[in-house]
């Protein structure tokens, strides 16, 4: 158990180290990047991806995946913003948004956990349906003219330059991380992803845990949708398109294993910061933002390949150690036989 904790810590630390090295390197080329304002803006800009990455992290912990979060973000953003434009109270809009996210998540969770459908296939299907629903709801038009107080909220700052959104999300992530690491039920997610049948055998409700993971993923995406509309100020029908892929990439960068059972929300948040800083870094290095996708792709592939290779190596090392231990025993037995 201690060993697992240690490795989990190491994985986060390596992401953090990567982040520090990345930012440091950029700082060498352009010291302007390392000013407090610029760094805190990196955090502020990562808020949507932090939410998406932390949400999808729950499903990845359990060994599944959810590619419908980008569409969920788009739908909740469209619906809640339209309600705000039409003058309904913000509480209602927020609640409706969260319910939409939870319902989509519950549908995904039902299909994956209780019907046993491969998660990528099922969520790809819901992704298509939800994306289509955005067009049905908005009739292909943009949602514009959001109330001024709503868009101004995204500029509201506490403690220097930190936006109130990021401060809240950071607090939520820290609290959730403690729950996941310290409480009995919090550990269910990792346990299910590590060994589903083993988890069932020790009495963990595997299906319920997976369902809850998907609901959480949907709710996080819904909240991300609300913050997205507050930050951007208008919603196109393609809002959030491809965000799911970037959120998965953020999780991978944050040291979360896609086979499940390994990783933490802190890691996901660090990955989200790296992910959303790429375009800012490019600007500071004097490249055009055309390199955005290329750099993201290279980062992602490099990280996963290095991760896989080091895991393979440690697996082979362990196996060799076991074999060595066994061969060390065999001659001893043989010697005894000789004595007879």
């Amino acid at each position, binding site marked *: 158990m201690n060993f697992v904790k240690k490795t989990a810590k190491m994985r986060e630390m390596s992401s953090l180290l990567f982040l520090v090295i990345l930012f440091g390197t950029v700082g060498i080329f352009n010291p302007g990047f390392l000013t407090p304002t610029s760094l805190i803006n990196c955090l502020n800009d990562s808020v949507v991806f932090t939410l998406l990455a932390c949400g999808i992290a729950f499903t990845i912990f359990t060994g599944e995946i959810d590619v419908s979060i980008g569409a969920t973000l788009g739908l909740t953003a469209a619906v809640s913003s339209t309600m705000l434009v039409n003058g309904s109270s913000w509480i209602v809009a927020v609640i409706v948004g969260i319910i939409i996210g939870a319902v989509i998540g519950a549908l995904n969770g039902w299909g994956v956990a209780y*019907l046993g*459908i491969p998660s*990528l296939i099922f969520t790809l*299907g819901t992704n298509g349906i939800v994306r289509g629903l955005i067009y049905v709801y908005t009739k292909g038009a943009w949602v514009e003219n959001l109330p001024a107080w709503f868009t101004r909220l995204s500029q509201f700052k506490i403690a220097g330059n930190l936006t109130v959104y990021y401060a809240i999300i950071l607090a939520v992530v820290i609290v959730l991380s403690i729950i996941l690491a310290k409480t009995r039920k919090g550990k269910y997610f990792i346990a299910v992803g590590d060994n589903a049948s083993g988890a069932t055998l020790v009495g963990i409700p595997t299906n319920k845990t997976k369902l809850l993971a998907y609901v959480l993923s949907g709710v996080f995406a819904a909240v991300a949708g609300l913050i997205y509309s507050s930050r951007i100020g208008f919603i196109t029908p393609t809002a959030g398109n491809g965000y799911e892929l970037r959120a998965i990439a953020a999780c*991978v960068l944050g040291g979360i294993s896609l086979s499940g059972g390994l990783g933490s929300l802190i890691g996901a948040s660090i990955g989200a910061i790296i992910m959303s800083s790429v375009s800012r870094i490019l600007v500071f290095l004097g490249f055009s933002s055309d390199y*955005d996708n*290329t750099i993201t792709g290279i980062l*992602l*592939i490099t990280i996963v390949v290095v991760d896989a290779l080091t895991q393979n190596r440690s697996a082979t090392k362990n196996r060799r150690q076991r074999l060595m231990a066994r061969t060390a025993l065999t001659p001893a037995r043989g010697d005894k036989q000789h004595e007879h």
Partner: protein
Amino acid sequence: MNINSSLIQFRSSIKSTVKRWETVLTFLLLSEFIIFSLANEKFTFTRMLLSINDIISICIISLFVTFVMVTGGIDIQAGSIVGLTSIVIGVSWQDGGMNIWGAVIVSVVIAALCGALSGFFVAYCGVQPMIVTLGGSFLFQGIALLISKISATESYKGISGFPESFTQIAKFKLFGVIPSQLLIFIALIIICYFLLHKTKYGRSVFLVGVNHEASEYSGINSRRVVMSTYILSGIGASIAGIVLTAYLGTAKSDIGATFTLPIITAVVLGGTLSTGGKGSILGTALAAVVIGVLRFGLPLSFKISTQYLDIPVGILLLAVVIGRAIASNSKTYAAFSKLFLRKKNAD
């Protein structure tokens, strides 16, 4: 012994499911035709052939992605390779001064290399296929955009003005009716069918999907087989890119960005197991046509806006996987068969 018996077992199981599933798909296709033509008399076969270009890319790519999914992998980078192919043809022809056919060959080689890169990471480094091809889709999309910036033409306009001989790929019509795209599709179905179902290579693709280790022990270079399927899927995407570029008459870096969902839907709907080991080219081809007809018929016969078409495709995908999950669930299956048996007894 063990491997032999499991081989026979999976062969027979494949045969029976394929037979059943392909009939289902054929019925689905026929009922689509009947419903759509009843709803609107403008829905005819010849009219559908005219708009074949909207669906041909998905049809072509899904044939090749079937290979990947039979080995238990997944390929979500094919869509971005379509754009890369298109822009490589355009830039190497217009700005590189190459012969158009030389440019086409270059683009196919590059697409194959893209597939090989991802395939290498999947097969030899043991990285999950979904993540590698996810990274690949970013990378190749990005590279396509960068290549488009090399060109003297503004990237949003796209490179056009291709020679007649090239655009003829998509304009040629056999007997004045059958478009070349259909001929290409049929030819590719035949090639893929033989490759997957009639050759030693195809058999090893299946065996790798059924049991990776067993195939390794039986002397198959399973890593090379896995890698080769990604190369094939890259080549398939480049063929689709060539056909699409020829039809549009413009080379752009972002065509094909929205193909991922329909491609995976076609392959899964075609009866390929996403866990590997089961699948058929004919099933995929039929499923791709079913989706294509759906996307063509719904706007024409029921006045459904093309923007909404993700909904029926998504519902189709979910209905198929849910239906299959219920059918394979022993409890519900037992209930179904009980019902069926009772009926028989009553007769």
